[in-house]
């Protein structure tokens, strides 16, 4: 594998700013290197976060821009008029005017210039045709500006007669200025996704079907563009409104919604009566309203278009129908109509979630428990295997595998992640991480917060997997500690200024913590070992095997570290208190506990589990009878048991030490992909 990619290159790659040669190298490396991919995604996440924050403060508003523009041009006109007065003869070079002194004056100039002209408002009466042309121009300018064009339009339908009915939805459209890429989402009033369509840079067209599965986009239902007035033809009845809109949208053939074009198409029809008026509905926001009426098949259709009086940017369009005892109105409110910078992380919106291996796609579900949009075809076992490992790895990276009640399940079409987490923030982390697997379509996340789980809904906590955390952090009643006096004696002897009782408490707490943490690691290891016995491992592809190896090695290394600290902490105390002869710190003879890493890991788990129980039994107290009041006999038993437990736990820890070393070797041997680097290289070179 190549060297990892430097931060600068990764960032430049995300921004599409690399020279072709570097770009190819980085792209190739990213394909085969999970580490760099995750760094890249951290960068793009960071950039997205910043962009979101920037957008959270939408200034200047279009209105402010227009105000500045108007003020500027007022001054401009005045200055040019004056210039003509000053130099009426043509061809005379004007006196050069140095800006440097003006700059030195800084803000003062601004004040001076500010007093220079009195802003004038443009309010010449305009004809309806002029206004329409100017609205068209403003719309076109916005759409043709470099970058991405983004529209968010609220659609409101209200039927007045015969049966009153209100219905709402939201349409969001992105399009690039070259007119190639396009993407739209259609959501109902509850914000649920109902329809989505994509047209990629390569001209491929995708859409979702009624069940939100991804399909190649069907050709539009009508050869011509469905006009707004044709919505009437659908009857605008409850069940048909959505169909009507989908047809209307599809027939636009990958074009953003153009209010002006709609209006012109309608107004150019026969017998249209056109009107323009200037309104001031809210202070400071005058509006130009264009309206056109026609009688179509006995129905009076009125189309109204409202635009900002200054920028001529369209804001609202509505069409009303009146006739035959029926009356309805359909409103389109454009609440976002903007140009976004052509940045890489916005480009993802044009990419449908298909599992083409050569490209990485992400779709973050609208709400965490919503299944990710998926391909219709059934994925192969191999694809699911790969996705599952990626899911495990993503959860591993977040530390979810250390005892959080999140379960990974498989069926024939999906990898399902279910569970309960502490907070919505944690859920967001998990969902975002899951959305970044190679093919999010194969993953379904159903994560609840504790609150949600408590207020009903299925509880996905997996008791078998979380049982171990129940014993966490027992309250320590020191009087319950068998051999308390002997422990105190030990701490008194190993002189220190702190009182022996306080040191004993600290010792007990850290011993309990360390063994509990070790057990968490052992559980994680056990789950991997049970899920991936040797025959499963052999089915995995190189990438997956590498991820598995990373996880196994991480758990083994942490476990080793935890057990080592546990031993360092416990061995001197236990051997002294229980009178166990100190075993020289030679490496324990490793008994052969398994022929492969998985078996060894399972053996390790049972020993760590036992150590945990023994240590918690001795130190955690719990049910131990009060030593002073218990009969002499049972106290003896208790003391003997505690001594045995300490001896056993020390012996076990030595054994585990050897086993861990062995497991590491076996895992390296069985899982290592070192020999497969050539294979990876070949896979990534070959066309996919």
């Amino acid at each position, binding site marked *: 594998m190549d060297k990892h990619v430097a931060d600068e290159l990764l960032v430049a790659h995300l921004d599409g700013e690399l020279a072709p040669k570097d770009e190819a190298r980085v792209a190739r490396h990213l394909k085969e290197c999970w580490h760099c991919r995750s760094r890249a995604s951290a960068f793009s996440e960071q950039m997205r976060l910043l962009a979101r924050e920037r957008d959270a403060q939408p200034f200047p508003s279009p209105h402010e821009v227009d105000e500045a523009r108007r003020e500027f041009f007022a001054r401009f006109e005045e200055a040019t008029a004056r210039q003509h007065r000053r130099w009426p003869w043509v061809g005379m070079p004007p006196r050069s005017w140095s800006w440097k002194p003006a700059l030195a004056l800084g803000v003062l100039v601004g004040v001076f210039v500010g007093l220079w002209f009195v802003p004038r408002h443009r309010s010449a009466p305009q004809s309806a045709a002029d206004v329409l042309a100017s609205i068209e121009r403003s719309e076109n300018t916005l759409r043709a500006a470099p970058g991405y064009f983004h529209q968010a339009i609220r659609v409101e339908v209200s039927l007045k007669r015969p049966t009153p009915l209100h219905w709402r939805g939201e349409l969001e459209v992105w399009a690039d200025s070259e007119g190639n890429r396009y993407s739209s989402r259609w959501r109902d009033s509850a914000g649920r996704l109902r329809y989505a369509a994509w047209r990629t840079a390569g001209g491929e067209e995708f859409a979702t079907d009624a069940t939100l599965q991804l399909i190649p986009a069907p050709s539009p239902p009508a050869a011509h563009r469905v006009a707004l007035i044709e919505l009437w033809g659908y009857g605008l009845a409850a069940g048909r409104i959505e169909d009507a809109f989908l047809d209307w949208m599809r027939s636009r053939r990958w074009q953003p919604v153009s209010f002006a074009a709609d209006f012109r198409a309608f107004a150019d029809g026969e017998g249209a009566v056109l009107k323009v008026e200037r309104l001031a509905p809210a202070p400071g926001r005058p509006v130009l309203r264009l309206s056109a009426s026609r009688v179509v098949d006995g129905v009076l259709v009125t189309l109204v278009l409202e635009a900002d009086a200054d920028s001529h940017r369209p804001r609202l369009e509505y069409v009303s129908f009146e006739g035959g005892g029926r009356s309805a109105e359909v409103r389109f409110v454009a609440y976002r109509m903007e140009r976004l910078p052509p940045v890489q992380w916005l480009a993802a919106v044009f990419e449908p979630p298909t599992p083409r291996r050569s490209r990485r796609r992400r779709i973050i579900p609208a709400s965490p428990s919503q299944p990710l949009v998926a391909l219709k075809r059934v994925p192969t076992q191999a694809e699911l295997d790969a996705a599952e490992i990626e899911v495990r790895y993503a959860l591993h*990276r977040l530390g979810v595998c250390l005892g959080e009640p999140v379960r990974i399940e498989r069926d024939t079409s999906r990898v399902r992640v279910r569970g309960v987490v502490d907070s919505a923030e944690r859920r967001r982390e998990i969902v975002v991480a899951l959305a970044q697997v190679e093919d999010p379509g194969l993953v379904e996340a159903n994560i609840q917060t504790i609150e949600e789980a408590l207020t009903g809904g299925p509880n996905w906590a997996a008791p078998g997997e979380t049982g171990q955390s129940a014993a966490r952090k027992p309250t320590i009643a020191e009087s319950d500690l068998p051999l308390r006096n002997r422990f105190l004696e030990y701490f008194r002897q190993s002189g220190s200024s702190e009182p022996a009782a306080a040191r004993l408490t600290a010792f007990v707490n850290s011993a309990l913590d360390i063994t509990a943490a070790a057990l968490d690691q052992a559980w994680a290891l056990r789950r991997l070992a049970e899920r991936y016995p040797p025959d499963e491992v052999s089915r995995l592809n190189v990438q997956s095997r590498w991820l598995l190896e990373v996880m196994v090695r991480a758990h083994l290394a942490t476990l080793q570290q935890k057990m080592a600290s546990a031993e360092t902490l416990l061995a001197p105390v236990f051997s002294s208190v229980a009178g166990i002869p100190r075993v020289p710190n030679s490496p324990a003879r490793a008994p052969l506990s398994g022929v492969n890493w998985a078996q060894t890991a399972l053996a390790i788990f049972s020993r760590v589990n036992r150590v945990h129980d023994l240590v918690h039994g001795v130190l955690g107290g719990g049910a131990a009878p009060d030593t002073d009041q218990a009969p002499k006999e049972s106290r003896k038993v208790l003391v003997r048991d505690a001594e045995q437990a300490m001896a056993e736990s020390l012996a076990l820890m030595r054994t585990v030490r050897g086993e861990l070393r062995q497991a590491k070797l076996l895992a390296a041997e069985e899982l290592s992909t070192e020999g497969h680097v050539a294979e990876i290289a070949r896979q990534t070179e070959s066309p996919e």
Partner: protein
Amino acid sequence: MEQEEIRRLFQEFYDSWYASLLRYVARSVGSVELAKDLVQESFLLLCKELLNGKKIENPKGWTFRVVRRQIGNYLRADRYSGVSFEPIEGTPGRDAGEFVRPALRVEADEEPDRLSRLMEPLSVREREVILLRLEGFRYKEIAEHLGIGSATVKTFLARALKKMQERSGKAGAAAGARAEQSRYGQARS
């Protein structure tokens, strides 16, 4: 430049550039109103130059330089008039780059917004690069605007993102990756 041409140029400025520039300036001086004045003023200066027949190759770059200088003047003027802006390094210098930028407050008594807070750990240069990048400028444009090389833009950008990741602690993933790399990296690469 013909009047018609100048008119078109400024129309385009307002269509596609004004908002970005304004946001950048507002974040630099910490006030939307002041930013409006500064930008408008620099547009008027450019317009005057063009009307006077001066040839300006890259009007955007020219305007941007003027704006930055004005930001510098403003911050310096404020500094000497008693409002304290700590110089980042060295002595008070010639341009805006050497002053700490105040955080943007839309209303005078508001808390700085989240973007300002996110950018707290950044140096002035890193902040400028990030802001321009957020406005959708290409590296070449940023480099021209700030008078640095394209490679430096890359470095600043990466460093800034890194710093913010570390600050926000959201670098969980990245940090995890680093730890893993240091643990297994040697054996692997």
